[in-house]
């Protein structure tokens, strides 16, 4: 019994320590004057986490928009309200689906790769050698990846929404025959730029911060063995997915939850 309580206490202390380390780590690597060389490093990461993630994010967005239009139509047509299809597709994409699904895909596509890359650098002692020759690995390796993640995910989320709404248009208007004017018109009447698009962007900024932070920290903080790398990569995907889904509820409650 005492043994169990002791173990619980040790777990708690370890958790707090890891949280503290990761906060310190985030501050140290995100702050720093970007040099010209740093800008190139950021560019390269931007290409990797942003441009190369574009395909999977856009294709998922298209299919999610199409499926939503199809499902929404079969329900709405029972009430004779298929004109509301545009606003249903647009609001659910902008408020919830685009930030969350893009963040989940981003965690799987880019986050895990970041963890594995930094983890392997640590396991092969590249990070230590950098310190030996007087290069700060936090600024050289970690900072460009963090900033690339912060910028790339909101852009990917925008792409997801646009393609999803277009997918809804393809299915709803071109295939199922909803009147085109009411698809766009009802959407424009109900979507508020600040309230819906803006809050969606805030969400995706928060998710970008959390997902990239978790990915980079897991890579930097892992046990430098092959098993450690595989565990850290798994942890990145699991932790960031849970964090995104949990935070999404909190953010939704804060943004759309007031009953005024």
């Amino acid at each position, binding site marked *: 019994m005492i043994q169990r309580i002791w173990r619980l206490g040790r777990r708690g202390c370890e958790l707090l320590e890891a949280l503290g380390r990761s906060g310190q780590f985030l501050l140290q690597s995100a702050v720093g004057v970007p040099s010209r060389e740093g800008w190139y490093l950021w560019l390269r990461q931007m*290409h990797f986490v942003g441009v190369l993630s574009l395909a999977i994010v856009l294709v998922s967005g298209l299919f999610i928009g199409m499926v939503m239009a199809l499902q929404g139509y079969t329900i709405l047509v029972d009430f004779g309200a298929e004109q509301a299809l545009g606003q249903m597709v647009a609001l659910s994409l902008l408020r919830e689906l685009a930030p969350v699904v893009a963040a989940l895909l981003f965690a799987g596509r880019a986050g895990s790769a970041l963890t594995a890359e930094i983890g392997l650098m640590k396991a092969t002692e590249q990070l230590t050698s950098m310190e030996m020759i007087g290069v700060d690995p936090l600024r050289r390796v970690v900072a460009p990846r963090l900033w690339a993640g912060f910028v790339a995910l909101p852009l990917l989320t*925008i792409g997801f*929404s646009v393609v999803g709404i277009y997918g809804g248009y393809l299915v709803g208007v071109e295939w199922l025959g909803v009147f085109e004017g009411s698809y766009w018109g009802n959407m*424009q*009447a109900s979507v508020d730029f600040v309230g819906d*698009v803006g809050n969606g962007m805030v969400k995706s900024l928060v998710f970008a911060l959390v997902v990239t932070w978790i990915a980079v920290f897991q890579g930097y903080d892992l046990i430098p063995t092959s098993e450690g790398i595989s565990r850290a990569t798994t942890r990145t995907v699991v932790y960031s997915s849970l964090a995104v889904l949990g935070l999404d509820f909190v953010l939704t409650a804060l943004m759309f939850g007031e009953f005024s």
Partner: protein
Amino acid sequence: MKRSKTMELGVGLFMLAGILGLLFLGLRVSGLAFSPPGDTFRLEANFANIGSLKPRARVTMSGVTVGRVSSIELDTDWYDARVILEIDRALEDRLSRDTTAAILTAGLLGEQYVGLTVGGDPETLGDGDTIRDTQSAVVLEELIQQFVSNMISD
């Protein structure tokens, strides 16, 4: 160096696509129009009952949207609802003084909005004026009550 050029181009295109996407979301999806904030004027209207009218609801005239509800508050002098309307600047001093405002419902279950109908008075409404002739929202319970009491009195 050549490899890095194409990479730069890719990142540049990616960011450009993001900005264009945001523009699309703004203009096409949320119907944002670049109207300067100053091109509306204020009208007030007191209603005995506003039903479920909300701020930002549409103000229409013959079905055309001409403004929106900016705020709703309780008038403590008369204990009725004072609704502040923001109307297009183009209509300032063009609406007659006996314009009526009614709270209408879009469809059977739709949202409520304010409908304006012009009268024939040569005097016109300017910024900050009050619409005198108003018609409250139809509350279903009151209708039913009236119907029932008419049935009993017959």
